[in-house]
């Protein structure tokens, strides 16, 4: 109980509140500008968090992400360009409502469902994380090996788009993770005699490069045609009635989102697609979906913000990121001397609860800030990309330099930026590569140390009950898609 009180004091410090407010404003603007995503906003925020204490640093990230995921709906609704990938699922509905002359109603729905979904996610995080952490203190290298493998398998298989491309991206990430001195035997790998590379590929510059640079490059190569956003009426009119009618969608969306978010590798965008599909299947009027219907908009809008909070469960409890944003968060936690894992719930519970409170606050701030941004959005959408591309590039360079005070970081950022751009151009998802980079070291290290403990006996991986259960889960994730292909072939075979 005292930890919760302490956490409350930590969060109500003026500098924490100011940080949350500033980060929220930044997030809501970044999300509203088409092409600037929540992940990218967080990646660019990281260098600034170096100068902050742990609580404001983590709070800033949480607040920025929550706001950006909501305000990504704004260009989607007004211009039919999703501001962040997480808004893509219901962009047609939002835009259709907007075209029928009620843009403020569509955005109001997005705002309320984002807030409710986010709060459901935070509540789940607050209850599930400490319980899981209690359980996870009994996890040894064997369980961590399976968890890392489970995370990587999910990342490749659940990822949006083609599975083979997901696996390709994952393998790239895993390879990059092997660069540097290996943590067990101290042997340098793929360093080509470079002292800089003995430390491995620095994670944050790679991340900034892969998420932010492709956007800059795309802005240079592509020209978007100019569109005029419509004018807004009063935001809150009619929302109460809609929410009373659609509370089921709201709750289900928030829960679906939180649970999907908690799966490693599946983030807000996948949560939104799944929630939209569920809403459609459960609806009495599925034919109206995509033509300006509110059910899918509400359910998926709640899901993507719920996923954002849910993703923090495995991040804090196991050190395994739930999505790309929390993958960055892990880097920041290490920088702040807070090693994620069950131990931080024992060692510094007040910090963990402070993060939860900050999250809750950010989600509640969605309403006033959301209202303001809806009112201001017309002007924001008129900014041509030519203005913000150089700003983003400058932030990329400064950020990747600052992480280790070396120009090598900038080089890393540029190289990974080009790789990221090539990935995107060929529709290869970036998230699995990032997860491979984060989890590759963990996977290898726990495998090798487990083998050392058992002196080479592979049976150790099934020797403990929890480990055996996780092992079966991994095998299931692997077999499932194979089984799907086999069944489809069989059906085809019967038909011909």
């Amino acid at each position, binding site marked *: 109980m005292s930890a919760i009180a302490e956490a409350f004091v930590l969060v109500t410090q003026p500098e924490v509140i100011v940080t949350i407010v500033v980060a929220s404003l930044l997030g809501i603007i970044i999300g509203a500008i088409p092409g600037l995503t929540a992940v990218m906003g967080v990646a660019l925020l990281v260098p600034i968090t170096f100068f902050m204490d742990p609580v404001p640093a983590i709070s800033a990230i949480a607040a920025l992400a929550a706001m950006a995921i909501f305000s990504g709906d704004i260009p989607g609704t007004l211009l039919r360009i999703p501001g962040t990938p997480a808004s893509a699922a219901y962009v047609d509905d939002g835009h259709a409502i907007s075209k029928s002359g009620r843009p403020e109603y569509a955005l109001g729905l997005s705002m309320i469902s984002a807030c409710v979904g986010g709060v459901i996610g935070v509540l789940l995080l607050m209850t599930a994380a400490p319980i899981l952490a209690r359980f996870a203190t009994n996890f040894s290298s064997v369980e961590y090996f399976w968890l890392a493998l489970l995370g990587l398998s999910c990342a490749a298989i659940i990822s949006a788009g083609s599975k083979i491309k997901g696996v390709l991206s994952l393998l790239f990430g895993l390879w990059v993770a092997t660069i540097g001195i290996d*943590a067990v035997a101290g042997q340098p790998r793929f360093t080509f005699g470079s002292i800089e590379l003995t430390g491995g590929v620095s994670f944050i510059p790679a991340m900034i490069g892969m998420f932010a640079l492709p956007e800059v490059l795309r802005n240079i190569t592509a020209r978007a045609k100019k569109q005029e956003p419509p004018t807004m009426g009063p935001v809150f009119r009619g929302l109460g009635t809609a929410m009373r009618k659609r509370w089921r969608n709201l709750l289900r969306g928030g829960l679906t989102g939180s649970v999907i978010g908690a799966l490693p590798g599946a983030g807000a965008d996948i949560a939104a697609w799944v929630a939209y599909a569920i809403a459609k299947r459960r609806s009495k009027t599925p034919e109206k979906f995509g033509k300006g219907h509110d059910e899918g908009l509400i359910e998926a809008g709640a899901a993507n913000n719920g996923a954002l909070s849910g993703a923090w469960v495995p991040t804090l409890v196991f050190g395994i990121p739930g999505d790309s944003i929390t993958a960055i968060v892990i880097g920041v936690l290490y920088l702040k*001397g807070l090693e994620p894992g069950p*131990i931080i719930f024992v*060692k510094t519970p007040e910090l963990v609860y402070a993060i939860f409170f900050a999250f809750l606050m950010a989600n509640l701030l969605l309403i006033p800030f959301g209202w303001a941004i809806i009112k201001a959005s017309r002007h924001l959408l008129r900014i041509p990309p030519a203005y913000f591309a150089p700003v983003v590039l400058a932030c990329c360079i400064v950020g990747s330099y600052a992480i280790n005070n070396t120009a090598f970081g900038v080089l890393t950022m540029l190289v990974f930026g080009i790789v990221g751009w090539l990935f995107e151009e060929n529709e290869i998802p970036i998230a699995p590569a990032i997860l491979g980079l984060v989890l590759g070291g963990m996977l290898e290290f726990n495998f090798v140390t487990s083998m050392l403990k058992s002196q080479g006996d592979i049976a150790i991986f099934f020797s403990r009950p929890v480990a055996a259960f996780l092992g079966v889960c991994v095998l299931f994730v692997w077999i499932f898609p194979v089984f799907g292909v086999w069944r489809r072939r069989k059906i085809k075979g019967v038909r011909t």
Partner: protein
Amino acid sequence: MKLSTLTLSAVAAFAAFGTNPVLAEYPERPVTVIVPWGAGGGTDTIIRIFAIGFEEALGQPINVVNRTGGSGVVGHSAITHSRADGYTLGACTSEITYFDTIGLAPITPESFDLVSRLAEIPAGVTVSADSPYNSVQEVVDAAKKGGLSASGSGLGGPWHMAIAGMMKSAGGDVNTVQFIPSQGGAPALQDLVADGISIFSGSPIEARALASAGEVKMLAIMADERSPAFPDLPTLKESDVDWSMSNWFSLCAPAGLPEDIKVKIETAAKKAHGSTAVQEALAQRGITPVFDGSENFTTFAKGFASEAKSLLTDLGLAK
């Protein structure tokens, strides 16, 4: 005439400009201290505490810069590669004495001008709360029968040498306790609680939070005397095992520092280290402050290097 005066004054000005660095009092601009380990870790904490006093004593701002990675190789080699002008210093850790021995990098204590040790953190013996062992003697006896494992740092790291040296001093073989490498104290302690390993040989400072949460039992500290931060924790010597091992943290500079600058740095460092603010901040965290000065430290580092070499050779890790 006029022209030659101009030329003369220009030459004079140029000469003055050229000799400026020598004539100007060190330090005339901010000093950078490279920390080869992550922000928020042990070395970083010690250096940042020290920097507060050092800034005042030196009269210039101190920038603490973390250059992490490669088991400390990246940061340490960045220190050796910087200009020996006193404006780039480093926080050398015990790794400098055996980087070369384990074949990781050609870095030895001779690659640096060693200013002084600043602090040391002794190793310890910690077991999980449900472990059957309640004293070091019990641990040693059980270990000799085989089947025990320990962790706390990387292979060949300070806490590996700590447990190996303890077993050797207790009359066993250095490899009696199997050492499982870990990436720092926290994950090793986690594995201890989860019964993945039987002994945590890292510092009691790292184990303290979990000990007060009732998850682990601290049995001994590997220091020469009991630590004021842990008055109830016996030393190994009290259990008739003649062994102590501490990881240490120091202020160093790239080799070849001009003598006058070196003296200035050492004087300022000594003053800063002795200040109550620094002493108190270190003691509060259970870190033992040490200041042995350049000469003693250089001798100490040599001794430590040869001791490490013999242990690492026994362990089969020397290359």
